[in-house]
């Protein structure tokens, strides 16, 4: 279990206990956190689960696969700390993780 804080573009914070093994995307979607659409359900096919990972957590969330990198390269409002949240698996190590959500996923 890890506490993950999702911060909407308008500043609203959602602190969610996410089970280890789920992805950061699933933690948001299963708890109805607005701002992560995840149209493809985690197949890394749509880039609608885009988040910005807080600087302190970038290393712990692992590296991007070529597929993820390539999808993000063409998403809107991408920053160096952009990730697709369906590709970040939650573990106890990520307890306290903070991610910010973009204005829109489409």
């Amino acid at each position, binding site marked *: 279990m890890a506490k993950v804080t999702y911060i909407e573009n308008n500043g609203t914070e959602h602190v969610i206990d996410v089970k280890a093994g789920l992805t950061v995307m699933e933690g948001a979607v299963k708890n109805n956190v607005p701002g992560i659409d995840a149209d493809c359900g985690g197949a890394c*096919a749509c880039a609608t689960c885009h988040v910005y990972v807080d600087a302190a957590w970038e290393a712990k969330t692992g590296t991007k696969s070529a*597929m993820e990198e390539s999808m993000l390269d063409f998403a809107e409002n991408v920053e160096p700390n952009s990730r697709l949240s369906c590709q970040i698996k939650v573990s106890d190590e990520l307890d306290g993780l903070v991610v910010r959500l973009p204005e829109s996923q489409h």
Partner: protein
Amino acid sequence: MGSVSTHVVVLGAGHAGGTLVALLRQYGFDGPITMVGDEPVVPYQRPPLSKAWLKGEADADSLALKPLEFYAENQIDFRPNVSAVTLKRADKIVELSDGASLTYDILVIATGMRPNKLPLPGAELSGVLSLRSAADAEELKGHLLPGHHVAIIGGGYIGLEVAASARTLGAEATVFEREGRILSRSACEVLSTFFTDYHRARGVTFELGAKIDSLVGEGGKVTGVKMADGRIIPADAVLVGVGGKPNDEIAADAGLDTARGVVVDLEARTSDPAIFAIGDCSHRPLPHYDRMFGPESVPSALEQAKQVACAITGRPAPTPEVPWNWSDQYDLKLQIAGLPFDTDQILVRGDPASGKFAIFHLKGDQVQSVEAVNAPPEYMMGRQLIGNRKHVNLDRLADPSVSMKEVAA
């Protein structure tokens, strides 16, 4: 924002209905919501049923859109194992299969599709399966074992995804396709050829232009596929993936406009202003193509759920999305944007033999559709080009050494 007196009733608890009720609460709708579904479980994702589920990489919990407690916590009256029987529009009443009836202010029909049955002798034998629900997938999974032989009737995406899963699990797979090539209804010949070769190289057998006489069995259980030429191809199970039919009867019987699905507008509203229809049961406008269509896809269902949630809560209508879809087979990710309507040529970017390429369907120098295999830049940029109607230089598009960003610049 929806007064407490507005009762929203959602018929169908699939990807569309389940997404809609969650969005309504997300958007602040605080009126009563009732959702009825004919399956025993909460709304879940269907795409993994032909892939992750069969391979044991997904279960009911992981596929559930929301956990069961979400519905009670959000005052959503979710009723499983129930379907709608009759719609009485004049009284705004829906009668249900369990004898109950519901009075609605707003009704959303999200009843999905059902798989077509095989109109052949032997189709009723045990071991002849379709794939729509988690229960179907669980039954199919039991047959995908090393040494078992699964016959797949229909060379569409479901059939091909199951063939890929079967081979990955060590089962034998034969795909029977009535047309001369697989994916004949949904993809161009270049893509058909590529997928045929890719599957063959991994041990799948194809019967193209297949004329099937019947399914044969012993003791009520299917044992093979009998061809018109007399051959019998043995099978421990037969998966039928020959398309589906929208569950639009309840709407048609109530006098709503239907045309292979319930006809809706860009708000997903039917010919009755108090009734919406979303997902696979609907027949919807495609503004990028100036025509009506039933996309039969999850992204379309999600877009329509958003349209309805916005209409009910008074939010501005969302910007129309370029239709898209995807398919995972082996290590291939196929991403499709747009639909190949009104095209005059196709352009292949990259070499199919490399397993990484994209097929652009063009109308003059504008992109109508792209089919991208392991090629996310082509898919992502292609989707934008379809949306913004930009004129592109075809020589540059055909040259993989020119990046997609440069092509679209």
